């Protein structure tokens, strides 16, 4: 009887290599993404990671914290979006209008988002041990406040639209007063001094005082009041809207 070593060895090597290949291949496949990404990209996360990697010069702390906070805020917006999308998708799938692929993409995106949230909390804790617990509360207030500021910034545009719609009407103190609030909310003025309100903090906050068109009685009272202590200062935004 010839030795059966050779064929046994042959079979063993064959099976062994097939097993190893299948294990390695499956592991590689499992770690790749299976479904289409739900969101095309995550610019805030990219920004944060890029900033972290800056080494000469390293990014200042304030910028890193700001980038992390914005990342958290964007994640909150995405959570909201995914919840709504999931509900809409459920309705569509029940009707049968879309296939399962989209649903799986959505679920995968949700899982990614959860991992992302955990990562953000971890990053926050590196700055300050309690920050991870409050960063998302802060981020949601950030979103709400940004909405309010957006309304204020939009006011000059609203004014232009209203004038188009209803025609120009008599204006005494004109647009600059509306624009002054927008200027204070704008990025260039994050913290105007919290001084006593009766002294205008800067030229941009004071509307032009009694100018053309005022009733003489009003003009007297306003000049005597001294609130127009900024005198003849006019806001740079003001000049564009005078009837």
């Amino acid at each position, binding site marked *: 009887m010839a030795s059966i070593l050779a064929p046994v060895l042959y079979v063993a090597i064959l099976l062994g290599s097939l097993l190893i290949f299948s294990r390695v291949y499956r592991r590689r496949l499992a770690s790749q993404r299976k479904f289409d990404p739900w969101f095309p990209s995550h610019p805030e996360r*990219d920004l944060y990671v890029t900033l972290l990697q800056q080494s000469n010069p390293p990014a200042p702390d304030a910028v890193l914290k700001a980038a992390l906070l914005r990342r958290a805020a964007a994640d909150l917006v995405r959570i909201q979006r995914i919840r709504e999308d999931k509900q809409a998708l459920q309705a569509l799938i029940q009707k049968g209008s879309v296939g399962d692929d989209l649903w799986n993409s959505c679920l995968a995106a949700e899982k990614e988002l959860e991992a992302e949230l955990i990562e953000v909390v971890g990053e926050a804790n590196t*700055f300050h041990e309690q920050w991870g617990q409050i960063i998302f509360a802060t981020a949601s207030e950030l979103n709400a*406040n940004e909405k309010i500021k957006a309304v204020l910034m939009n006011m000059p545009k609203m004014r232009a639209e209203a004038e188009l719609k209803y025609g120009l009407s008599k204006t005494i103190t004109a647009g600059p007063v*509306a624009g002054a609030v927008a200027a204070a909310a704008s990025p260039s003025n994050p*913290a*105007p001094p919290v001084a006593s309100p009766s002294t205008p903090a800067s030229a941009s906050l004071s509307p032009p005082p009694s100018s053309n068109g005022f009733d003489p009685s009003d003009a007297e*009272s306003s000049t005597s009041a001294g609130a127009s202590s900024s005198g003849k200062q006019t806001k740079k935004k003001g000049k564009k809207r005078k009837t």
Partner: protein
Amino acid sequence: MPVPPPPDPAVLAAIEQDYKPVPLRLNENQVLCDGHGLEKCGECEVDFVAVNQLAKMIVSHPEYAVPPPPNMIPPQRSQAVSKAKEEGNSAYKARRYPQALHSYTIGASIAAARPSWEHSQVSRDEISILLSNRAAAYFEAGEFMNSLVDTEAVIAIRKPWSKGHYRKGKALLGLGKGEEARDAILTGLSYEPTNQELLTFLAEIENKIGRG
């Protein structure tokens, strides 16, 4: 706080895949685009305005290591805002409308500059009250357009508030648009169906429209 379980490696891999480094340049506490040194660059497709704003805000409050929880609100700003409001109110009662407008504007500016990490409800309340009073002052001074713009801002910030809709109706009526004034009041009533102020004003508008 218990350590959360390590995330799924497949998910982490997916996140890594997505990462695209952002071309940027640092300038003091500002992030700028690498190609042109701009905050908001159409060509590089970046928009750093929000980050820079926030960084500025954080830098201007060195007393905090990280942005504090939303309920931590130092009282000075609210005091300044209510002081401005009181000044505006007294000027309004004395019929010194330009003075009132000035005070209300100052108050609204102070309220609007509140740091973004504080409770939005406080800022919302303050700004809507000041803008609504300012709208009333504009109305009394006869500037219906400015009044209208202010009321629209109030409604955008605080939709269910009956006063916003009420003042919008008044401004529209002042501009001579009876139909639209009525629409505004009806919208307000949809939020507060039993509001007496709105109902009486609605009757007044109906009268005016009926006559004209």
